């Protein structure tokens, strides 16, 4: 069933640092990172008024649909997408085939700047995710916290 996405402190901190820096460098309002199945990995910037869970799921839906379209015309995928709104714009880029980096910025911000900074950040992120995948696949990887759960633990979740 493919490799499960697992996140550890070390990589998580590095990923958050890259996203925080990108928010500043690209003059972005929000930067977030979503896995292609729609799970939010990281969010930086002014996230207070944004429903990040919905955003993550719709981003994944969008990327999946565009990926399907790409295949229909013989492309592997569309690695970058830009959506320009009257006030806010959105830039999406696929990082290392498993995650999507999304940048929301004011339409007055230069798209050229955003592209440039996104490129740099996405290269860094790709490396971190590669390392993460190696770690997850290595046999000495951390044991799942779920290996030890009991049927009672599961039942308790549903006890109300």
């Amino acid at each position, binding site marked *: *069933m*493919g490799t*499960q*996405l*697992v*996140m*550890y*402190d070390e990589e*998580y*901190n590095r990923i958050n640092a890259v996203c925080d820096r990108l928010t500043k460098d690209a003059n972005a309002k929000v930067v977030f990172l979503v*896995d*292609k*199945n*729609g*799970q939010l*990995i990281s969010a930086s910037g002014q996230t207070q008024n944004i*429903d990040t*869970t*919905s955003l993550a*799921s*719709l981003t994944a*839906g969008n990327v*999946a*649909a565009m*990926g*399907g379209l790409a295949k229909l015309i013989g492309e592997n995928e569309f690695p970058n997408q830009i959506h320009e709104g009257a006030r806010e714009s959105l830039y999406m880029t696929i990082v290392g085939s498993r995650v999507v980096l999304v940048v929301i910025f004011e339409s007055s911000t230069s798209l050229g700047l955003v592209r440039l900074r996104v490129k740099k950040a996405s290269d860094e992120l790709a490396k971190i995710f590669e390392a993460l995948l190696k770690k997850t696949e290595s046999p000495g990887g*951390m*044991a*799942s*916290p*779920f*290996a*030890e*759960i009991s*049927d009672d*633990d*599961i*039942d*308790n*979740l*549903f006890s109300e």
Partner: protein
Amino acid sequence: MSFINYSSREINCKIVYYGPGLCGKTTNLQYIYNKTNPETKGKLISLSTETDRTLFFDFLPLSLGEIRGFKTRFHLYTVPGQVFYDASRKLILKGVDGVVFVADSQVERMEANMESYENLKTNLAEQGYDLAKVPSVVQYNKRDLPNAVAVEELRGVLNTRGVPEYQAVAPTGVGVFDTLKAVAKLVLTELKKGG
């Protein structure tokens, strides 16, 4: 595919409601949404047509509480049941951790049920999943209707594997939470094994 974050101590799982057009998948999510506490749920997102048919998916994030210090979150999705939306169904199945097959109990929908069930197997197989190995449950919905087929007959074609099954009337909630709990349990049990 579940996502375990050791840093924020969260685990996210994806559950997909599958089944023929109009069988009641969206109604299941709407009922769950209406009956859960605001603090445990996110927004219900429905990408649907003018006539309320699912166009791409419905999405509902739910938090179930903690297990051993890890917050467990379930992302519920429905697929569009209409036959011609097959490309979208394939996309939504990606990374699935658990499946609810919702059957329409009405006699005139038996063929549609069987077709959708085969379609589920085919689409899972395309992604390297085997339905027999994916945590799944079956829901026989629309039990309130006079033309509902006997459960034995439905079981004979849709649940020869003998997975947990529930009778339901989704608009009033009969069987809705039983179905959800059963699939969530299977998914967590699978995680336990897989760890």
